[in-house]
């Protein structure tokens, strides 16, 4: 496969975010990207080709995970970045922030078990319409770690129907064989949903951590293929300005 396009990524950091260092590391050291952290008070995102909202506990996850982060100064700029067609990717807590901010449909509930989930899960790529996922084959299975307390995705039936019809379901939890079953569902998510996109396909989020599975030495590198697809599908800054 051809080399990855060299893009510049901003990794957004709220007070309480804790996955930014490994996210920047994977982008720069493993995937040949340029990347730096973006503090939540920054508002100028014009240098970036894409943004990643990293995992953690933004603003302590007080009230609801992501509820307060939504009012950080950087969020207005992220909304504009997304409206311009820029790639915005939420991982774990970043997913929670993006649904609270209304950049993605639905909401997050506490895991049905009421316990913090921390283990490897299997994800099945769905037939998504998002360019960020065009490098994945629907049905392909990825083994990646998940670590969250509020990862049970919920949406009203009419919203879910619309998302499904639009190809906005990105990933579902599944077994090793790709079968989507209740036993493979680690957190009670509606229809085993683990990742979704907006209608435009340029905002994507998933609860598991592809950046934690980007090197075989750490137990697996399936996450790397997900990140590579995102990089290939992101619309670069110059293309958006044109």
């Amino acid at each position, binding site marked *: 496969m051809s080399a990855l396009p060299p893009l510049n990524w901003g990794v957004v950091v709220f007070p309480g975010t804790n996955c930014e260092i490994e996210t920047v590391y994977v982008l720069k050291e493993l995937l040949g990207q340029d990347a730096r952290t973006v503090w939540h008070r920054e508002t100028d995102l014009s240098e970036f080709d894409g943004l990643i909202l990293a995992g953690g506990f933004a603003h302590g996850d007080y*009230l*609801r995970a992501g*509820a*307060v982060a939504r*009012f950080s100064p950087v969020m207005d700029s992220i909304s504009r970045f997304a409206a311009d067609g820029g790639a915005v990717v939420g991982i774990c807590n970043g997913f929670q922030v993006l*649904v*609270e901010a209304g950049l993605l449909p*639905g*909401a997050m*509930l*506490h*895991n*049905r*078990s*009421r316990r913090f989930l921390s283990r490897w899960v299997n994800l099945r790529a769905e037939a998504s319409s998002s360019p960020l996922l065009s490098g994945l084959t629907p049905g392909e299975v990825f083994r990646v770690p998940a670590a969250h307390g509020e990862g049970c995705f*919920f*949406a*009203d039936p009419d919203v879910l129907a619309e998302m499904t019809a639009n190809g906005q379901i990105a990933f579902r939890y599944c077994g090793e064989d790709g079968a989507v079953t209740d036993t493979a569902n680690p957190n*009670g998510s509606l229809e085993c949903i683990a990742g979704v996109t907006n209608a435009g396909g340029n905002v994507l989020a998933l609860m598991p951590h592809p950046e934690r599975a980007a090197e075989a030495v750490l137990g697996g590198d399936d996450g790397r293929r997900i990140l590579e697809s995102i990089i290939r599908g992101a619309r670069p800054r110059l293309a958006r300005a044109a």
Partner: protein
Amino acid sequence: MARARITIRLKPTVLDTQGAVVKTALHSLGFDGVLDVHMGKSIQLDLEAGVGRSEVEAMCRQLLANPVIEDFEIELTDGANA
């Protein structure tokens, strides 16, 4: 000083896993008469006089509750404009 008490609960269409766990615990203690448990949050706001219900409702919609999954009730006391 006016005061608002806000009760936030999951919508009836959303499974209340916390309530289900507490119900099981109450049953295990022998409180068999408990039919259902609904968990939620209680938030108290101390307000300047004159802050009205519509403003508190706006606070609930914009931050305190997530309308996708939660309902809220507001109780205003001590001279707030109802």
